[in-house]
């Protein structure tokens, strides 16, 4: 037995080895698509606008959270252009970041795709240059601030060629419980961070939770950036997110913003167990009527209209000093781009054009987002008593002050999971200090960008 066994073992080892080396040989050569599309810097040579003559079906890819908005826009769009059928696919929101690059690089990509990072889409020539469509449809008339974050040049977002067009915008700031705000003597929105701090002190004395921060999934970065927008300034924040050369947040102003949040936390202004509280828990805490401020975004407005009808207001984060720079994170609900390998680019562009139509704007506002469009278009209507009125008013105020910024968590693919979330947890857990906090995030940013 032993002899037969050993010769067989040797023989099977040889066969396995041969199979293995054959496999290894086929795998040789640098990985990566040799069939990467050629440069798309110039965009389609000819574009056609308007309804297509023959029926056409286009596919669309987005996150599940935006299904309601997208489905309503698609319904309105196909009603207006019966020749076009739109087939949407939605992925759970927490995996769109992972799946989107693969969808974009697929052999048969969707015709319309959610663009999360313009810079990375451009890097591999996977997105269509939309400038010819912008000229043909007159998208140039839209306020520059609405499209600048979807432009890129030399791998840096913020200006240059247009690669995506938004359905609408998000808006961030402070929700507040009207009854509790009145209880602590807030008659007007606080004019400065100092006034806000004083109000939160009163709330603490009144036995209320002054600010519902939730940091299990990294929501603690919200108040940090709301302060950063004003203290560092929207331009520097945007430059950092768009990976402008030499951009840094390792500055005294950013440390001051982190310091302020750490001080609030130390003063007991955040809920107990802030690092274990998630967004749902925070919503429940705010709805329980035991809190005053809730730094969050427009996406919660429809929900708050339901859970606390008429009881909630919304204001922008007050500036660092009275009369100073206002700021808010506000980027696209979804920015749709057209993959380079898409089959129906003209029909897809028609859909992009429809996104700033009056019909689409009303749908976007009904769903709690800020519409994209020109100032002379009819304003969408919002029912009285809805907190959405406050959100839209705050958006106008911040836009007028030039304070719209992209989210710092979107600066690189890994910065949210690998820096902002864990580092903010360390900061609020008392395991880090503001100086180290900002320095570590900047270091991670630099290492991921290979700087």
């Amino acid at each position, binding site marked *: *037995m032993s002899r037969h066994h050993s010769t067989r073992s040797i023989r099977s080892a040889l066969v396995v080895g041969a199979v293995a080396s054959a496999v290894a040989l086929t795998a040789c050569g640098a*990985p990566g698509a040799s069939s990467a599309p050629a440069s798309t810097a110039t965009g389609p040579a000819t574009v056609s606008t308007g309804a297509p003559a023959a029926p056409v079906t286009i596919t669309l890819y987005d996150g599940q959270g935006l299904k309601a908005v997208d489905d309503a826009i698609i319904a309105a769009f196909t009603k207006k252009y019966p020749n076009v059928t739109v087939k949407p696919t939605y992925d759970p929101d927490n995996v769109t970041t992972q799946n989107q690059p693969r969808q974009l690089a697929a052999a048969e990509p969707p015709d319309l795709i959610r663009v999360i990072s313009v810079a990375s889409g451009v890097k*591999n020539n996977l997105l269509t240059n939309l400038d010819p469509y912008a000229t043909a449809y007159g998208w140039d008339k839209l306020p520059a601030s609405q499209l600048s974050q979807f432009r890129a040049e030399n791998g840096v977002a913020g200006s240059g060629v247009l690669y995506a067009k938004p359905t609408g915008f998000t808006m961030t700031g402070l929700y507040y419980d009207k009854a509790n705000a009145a209880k602590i003597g807030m008659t007007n929105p606080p004019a400065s961070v100092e006034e806000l701090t004083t109000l939160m002190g009163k709330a603490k004395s009144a036995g209320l939770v002054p600010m519902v921060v939730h940091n299990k999934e*990294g929501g603690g970065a919200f108040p940090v950036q709301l302060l950063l927008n004003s203290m560092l300034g929207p331009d520097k924040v945007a430059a950092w997110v768009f990976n402008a050369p030499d951009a840094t947040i390792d500055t005294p102003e950013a440390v001051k913003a982190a310091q302020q949040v750490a001080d609030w936390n130390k003063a007991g202004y955040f809920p107990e167990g*802030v690092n274990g*509280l998630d967004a749902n828990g925070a919503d429940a805490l705010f709805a329980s009527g035991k809190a005053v401020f809730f730094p969050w975004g427009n996406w919660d407005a429809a929900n708050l209209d339901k859970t606390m009808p008429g009881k909630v207001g919304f204001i922008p984060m007050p500036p660092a000093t009275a009369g100073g720079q206002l700021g808010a994170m506000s980027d696209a609900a979804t920015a749709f781009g057209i993959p380079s390998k898409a089959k129906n680019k003209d029909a897809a562009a028609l859909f992009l054009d429809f996104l700033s139509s009056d019909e689409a704007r009303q749908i976007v506002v009904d769903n709690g987002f800020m519409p994209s469009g020109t100032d002379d278009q009819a304003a969408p209507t919002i029912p009285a008593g809805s907190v959405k009125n406050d959100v839209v008013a705050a958006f106008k105020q911040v836009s007028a002050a030039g304070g719209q910024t992209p989210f710092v968590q979107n600066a690189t693919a890994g910065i949210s999971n690998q820096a902002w979330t*864990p*580092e903010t947890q360390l900061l609020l857990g008392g395991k880090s200090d503001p100086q180290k906090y900002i320095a570590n995030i900047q270091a991670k940013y630099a290492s991921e960008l290979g700087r």
Partner: protein
Amino acid sequence: MTTVDGTAAPAAQAGAARPARPSRRAGAGASAARRRAAWAGWLFALPALVMYAVFELYPVFSAVQYSFYDWDGIGVASPAGVQNYVRVFTEPQLVASIAHSFVLILFFSILPVTLGLVVASITREIRSQFAGGVARTLMFLPQIIPGAASAIAWTWMYSPDGAVNQLLSALGLGAFTRTWLGDFTWALPAVGVIGTWLATGLCTLLLLAGIGKIDASIYEAAQIDGANRIQQFFAITLPGLRSEIGVCITITVIAALASFDVVFMSTQGGPGYSTTVPGVQVYQLAFTENRVGQSSALAVVLSVLVLAIILPLQRLFRER
């Protein structure tokens, strides 16, 4: 013996009985038949081998290859030498994640096997068939729930107003309540307990099956000799379960070192970096950060690590 062919088997058995001498029937013709039979055997194994090569070997070799490149998964890769491996051992967060997975061995392996041994020896003595069946079913229940689902359930129980804190308060231990998964000291043990809960059932069931094979008369003899339950456990049960314990340890140590679902669904590595494990890092690096090369390097290191720990364990638990 890999052959399934009828003609080869008797010859091989004869060979087994008298290893040095060829069997009486064995001439030149018989050996040719045997060779043919061997190839027939390979033919039978071919479908499985092809599957193995395509779905196991090829991905393994690809991962090893990727680990020497800088690649975003889409564009063209650039060679990186051993840089990715250097980073696995120098980036403090990657080193820490490997250390965390060793802490999890305590919760995923040592505790479940210990608990399993205790429960199995007690269950052995349950005389009623019905009660024994119910006990076994209840113990095994966690095993049929997906790790991701139980992680979500445990996340609720660990929340500030969750079952764990309610229980502590009810017992007058209100001072010990905390946000378990948000606590830098307690998050890792809390995640570990989820693993203990998941693995104990499997270990108990395997060990119970093992105890069933031990001859009951040995226990009777020991009892007559005056051995108490503890002495019986150490003298009979423990040695008799050697190979079953080996299986339990092997499965659960792999689960600890390669853990993903429980950590991903409960903490995603937080708070801070206190519960990061290599499995989650491999996923984050490859699919969130698009650093496929770095991710592959960590995955290769993880695989080597698992083998380096499992192989000696296998030797240790082999039946003598």
